[in-house]
């Protein structure tokens, strides 16, 4: 259950707005918030109006509009209106921005959190990896076994892959490291 954050009369308005925006749940991964995922980039005031900047996880992320809608709604409930929601494309979102709290929540919900994103040498071509052996083992979020197998590189959303635990045989999702 999501507990709405009520404005604290003593807190500066911008701080309250930041807390409200940070607590908005992600529409596709509702166990984590926009701040947990690193999607929320900035909350500022411009000419007395609140500006919230978010970034998409993937180019085709269909949840971005719902996120913007949810932000406007919750912020207006907290007394902030009108609210401008902006998109930032650079720097591109990386799964490294998922916070430790976000990782714990994903794990608790049966979704394996991502490994660190591969470091890239911008001057060199992106290496072709091939095969499953190169992947770091993804531990089963239910039983903890490191013996798991990727069954599909893509899952119900672009940001996740499908795995199966070789020990407890349960299928689970893994947030891809990008």
């Amino acid at each position, binding site marked *: *259950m*999501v*507990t*709405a954050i009520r404005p604290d009369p003593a807190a500066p308005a911008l701080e309250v707005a930041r807390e409200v925006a940070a607590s908005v749940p992600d*529409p596709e991964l509702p166990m984590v918030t926009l701040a947990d995922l690193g999607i929320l980039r900035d909350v500022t005031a411009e000419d007395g109006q609140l500006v919230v*900047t978010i970034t*998409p996880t*993937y*180019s*085709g*992320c*269909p949840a*971005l*509009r*719902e996120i*913007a*809608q*949810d932000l406007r*709604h*919750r912020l207006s*409930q907290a007394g902030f209106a009108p609210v*401008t*929601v*902006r*998109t*930032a*494309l*650079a*720097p*591109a*979102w*990386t799964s490294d921005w998922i916070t430790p709290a976000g990782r714990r929540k994903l794990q608790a919900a049966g979704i394996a959190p991502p490994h660190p994103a591969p470091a890239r040498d*911008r001057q060199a*071509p*992106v290496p*072709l*990896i*091939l*095969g499953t052996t190169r992947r770091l083992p993804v531990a089963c979020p239910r039983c903890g076994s490191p013996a798991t197998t990727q*069954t*599909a*590189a*893509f*899952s*119900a*959303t*672009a940001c996740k892959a*499908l795995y199966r635990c070789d020990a407890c045989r349960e299928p689970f999702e893994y947030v*891809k490291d*990008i």
Partner: protein
Amino acid sequence: MTDDEFTVYQGLAQDTEDHRWAFGTGFTDPLEGIDTSVADGVDPAALATYCLMLGDDALIYSHRLQQWMTRMPELEEETALANIALDLLGQARMLLARAGRAEGAGRQEDQLAFFRDENEFRNVRLAETIDADFAELTGRLLIFSAWRLALFSQLTGSADPVLAAIAAKGVKELTYHREYAAEWVIRLGDGTALSHAKMQAALEAIWPLADELFRTDAVIRTLPAVAADPATLRGEVDEVLRTVLAAAGLDRPDRAPMAAVAGQTGRDGVHTEAFGYLLAELQSVARAHPDATW
């Protein structure tokens, strides 16, 4: 309604001006709040055309991939392909929006996607022709994604910051696409005698369309700091294909490039017969009901 009762689904049901499904004016601008001014020294018309080229490649190929939906051999593969198509559609939306802004005539992504005619589309012909079978799907996806990944890697240093940002996001996505395609090409090539024969035949069929990907054109030449010269991508793509084909036990086809028409190809708006049918499917509803919403 309390906060706790509020869900995104209720939000979607609200009939407000800026919340509508499907095509029409309902999509939020994918570049909302992003500075899309064109840098000094960059020709805005050429930049718009270049973004159309890259956006059309993604839009048209995404549509072809979507046509595989309900036809894939397994649910996992269907999900994978849907995600790849969605990534490309996302890239297309941003690139078409960028083209519209650079052009400065007020055209938005929907106008560009649904209300341009065949000869105004700038996509390469590899993106528009139909996959004869699953082997062609994987072979085409390998060539397309290996090429686009090499291209976008270069564009991360583009003098147009919007294009550079779109490319930097795309690189991460295309890395997954290329990996997916490569694994399938190896699995089929290194599989049974039948799968090997089909994979080899698929490469032979697609190969003539690959040459067009590496041709430099007049528009690209006017944007040296903004665009990536396609001719410079050949080495990287060849190396990837060589590695994958070797692992798959497949021969590199020796096929002449598909002929240009009076020197013109997809980048010039000259397309194959298959393209008209694709465009009809893509555009007919939007054209029959302009500005419709539901």
